[in-house]
């Protein structure tokens, strides 16, 4: 005799599942919000103070170097958020974890916004430094592509009625995207060197510690800001789903009552 079995995964609740259950998340993340707000605001104040008043001008770029303190953190977030989404995608596909779905969904608009900010500040940094707002330089082009990918993912989320089903499908394309990003980066670099010699000469900025310090504080501040927004957005999404479920239940109940009469 041969046996074929299709068994539902027996859900053993380990500590991680307990913490990561949406309802549980809603409870414990409540206590996270206030500390996060405090940390974010203080680091921003310190970082901005450093950025404006306690860091030197660059000998080449002058005061414009201060744009770096918002450009680099947003550029970092644009990539960090995509990687986070990709990790959530794995969680969603492999462990079918509802919290991963939620994290993935709410991260996309945040990622798109930070990527747009990175492009915006990059353009404003580029104009006084290199004399142009936009250059088809490898890094800028691939960031633009990243923005397009974010927007595509948001559009995909929006076009599904059933968000639970959408999660897995979005996860697939997110993962295909994350595998593809190095190839895109590589191809853009190739294309860039092919078509025009790089006019950017001031790439290798030697960074003195006076510039490091505000940069790292700002990096931390922006990351905290993202975590704060992400946590709150996840809470919003979980509550929204709860409300949706309640509403659906109600509709079913009402239609059932009619049938009985």
């Amino acid at each position, binding site marked *: 005799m041969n046996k*074929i*079995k*299709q068994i*539902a995964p027996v859900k053993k609740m380990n500590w991680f599942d307990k913490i990561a259950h949406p309802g549980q998340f809603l409870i414990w993340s409540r206590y996270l919000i206030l500390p996060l707000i405090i940390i974010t605001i203080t680091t921003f104040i310190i970082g901005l103070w450093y950025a404006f008043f306690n860091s030197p001008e660059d000998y080449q770029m002058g005061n414009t170097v201060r744009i770096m303190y918002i450009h680099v953190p947003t550029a970092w977030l644009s990539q960090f958020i995509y990687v986070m989404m990709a990790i959530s995608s794995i969680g969603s596909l492999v462990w079918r974890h509802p919290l991963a779905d939620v994290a993935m969904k709410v991260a996309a608009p945040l990622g798109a916004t930070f990527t747009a900010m990175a492009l915006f500040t990059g353009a404003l940094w580029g104009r006084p430094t290199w004399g142009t707002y936009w250059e088809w330089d490898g890094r800028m082009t691939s960031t633009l592509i990243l923005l397009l990918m974010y927007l595509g993912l948001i559009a995909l989320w929006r076009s599904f009625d059933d968000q*639970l*089903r959408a999660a897995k499908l979005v996860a697939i394309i997110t993962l295909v995207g994350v595998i593809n990003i190095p190839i895109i980066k590589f191809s853009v670099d190739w294309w860039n060197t092919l078509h025009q010699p790089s006019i950017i000469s001031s790439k290798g900025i030697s960074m003195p510690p006076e510039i490091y310090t505000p940069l790292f504080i700002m990096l931390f501040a922006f990351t905290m800001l993202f975590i704060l927004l992400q946590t709150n957005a996840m809470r919003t999404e979980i509550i929204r789903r709860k409300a949706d479920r309640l509403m659906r239940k109600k509709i079913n109940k009402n239609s059932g009552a009619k049938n009985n009469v």
Partner: protein
Amino acid sequence: MQQQQQQLRVNNLSLERSGRQILSDINFALKEGEALLLRGDNGVGKTSLLMSIAGYLHINSGEIEWEIKRDTKREEGEEWGEEEENLLIKNLHFIGHQQAIKPHLTLEENLLFWCQLYGGEEKWVQEALIRVGLANAISYQAALLSAGQSKRLSLARLLVANRPIWLLDEPSSALDKNGDKLVADLIDEHLDGGGIAIIATHLNIELKNKKRIKTLMLKAI
């Protein structure tokens, strides 16, 4: 030799779709030569149950277990590979509402494709079409068929490859009295050959041997 039978067992199956509990605690066991009728109102999850047995849906808890005989050899020519043997989905027929018929192809082309895909023998295509009463339309385009005839054509898919488990979703919809009889006869023959069938239906299906039929009444949760 120990005489063991094929069995399909479903234990404590429960299913959630779009965050809503559809089925819970479904239990049944079918031995070879037995059929199960799924009954219940619209929306109680008849189709979902069939689809979860077919492996389309990811069940939330419980298990679906199928014991097959080792000596159930496939038709000569192709052996089952390891990989296929592990999957229930490769060993069953599912006939749902969607008929999977391409209107531009002829009846024979339509059926031949499924026959090849399922690893059946090509001569069975003719036989199947005769069996469902479409023999004289064999080289017509499927677009010319009426609703009932289309249904018959999709039922013919059951006959072009040997599969021990049949899952039928409303097999007699759009069919006339003769069609009902045909469905009943097909199921009878399948059960005689040691098969197992699960049928979701509103109508009665008159089998020769009533003992072979179990009924499962599904209720809304």
